[in-house]
């Protein structure tokens, strides 16, 4: 696989998640986790323990989710860039010694 294949695959991934939004623009897109939670609560169950701390608003919650994704993406980007840079440097050295 080369960069072109990577781009095609990633475009397919984006399409997989964009298509539902286009076909069903008016669907609620609520979280499956909370749907299950509601299905249980609907039967009269009350949770016996509540979270120690909850994000005070939807904005703060999405901030923390974005932070989680950013930390992960940062590490992946660092790793990929580091390895590519190392390989490029090695190739330059090899061509220099070959000359």
């Amino acid at each position, binding site marked *: *696989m080369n960069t072109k*294949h*990577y781009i095609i*695959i*990633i475009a*397919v*991934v984006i399409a*997989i*998640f964009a*298509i*539902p*939004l286009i*076909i*069903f623009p008016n*669907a*609620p*897109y*609520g*979280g*499956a*986790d*909370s*749907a*299950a*939670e509601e*299905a*249980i609560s609907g*039967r009269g*169950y009350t*949770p*016996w*323990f*509540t*979270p*120690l*701390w*909850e*994000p005070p608003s939807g904005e703060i*919650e999405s901030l*923390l*989710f*974005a932070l*989680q*994704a950013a*930390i*992960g*993406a*940062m*590490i*992946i980007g660092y*790793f*990929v860039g580091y*390895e*590519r840079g190392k*390989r490029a440097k090695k190739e330059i050295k090899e061509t220099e010694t070959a000359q």
Partner: protein
Amino acid sequence: MHIMEGFLPHPWWEIWFAIALPIVAYGVYRLSKVTKKIPEAKPLLALMGAFIFVLSALKLPSVTGSSSHPTGAGLAAVVVGPGITSVLSIIVLIFQALLLAHGGLTTLGANTFSMGIVGPFVAYAIWIAAKKVRLPIAAGIFLAAAIGDLVTYVVTSAQLALVFPTAGGFFDAFLTFGSIFAVTQIPLAIGEGLLAVVLFDFLAKYKGQLLSAMKVIKLPTPASTQKEPKQQ
């Protein structure tokens, strides 16, 4: 796949902790063993942890009109093994339980079991089977990551159905929760499988020797071609 805080009554939350913790302990043992034996593997551990971090933070829309998130644990299981993946998963789950009120401390055992144990072990088994029948590497990775993701949500459905059977019994409840979780998850699992293929392909290209030292893949030629000149 997150069972929310307080949604598993006694004795279920203790049962899932009792099942999950020994396996996480085994993962910690594997972690120290692998990092001692192959110190170069440490960046890979960070990378797999990061992959799980990103994917489990992304809530994605699905054709069912609801949204859910992938786990990223299947690829980690293939690269660093399912034991270590259970440790990486529990770290993410603790982060989400404490800071996001997503999942919970009392349901940590159950969530670790579905995301960090069954999903990764199934993904690992699929990868081994795919290697045995000589499927192309990309196909093996795709199947391992996608099915590992799906299985996690099937386990969550079963965990909830055990505690909250309907009048129709366990199986009826399992189908109810399954329709909430597992069906929504199908396109997400495909997406996760494709992303795993891309990252693994990069790893095989740039970290092939390390992956072969960790017995993830076999490098085809170098070992045999390097020996030949010495014999001459």
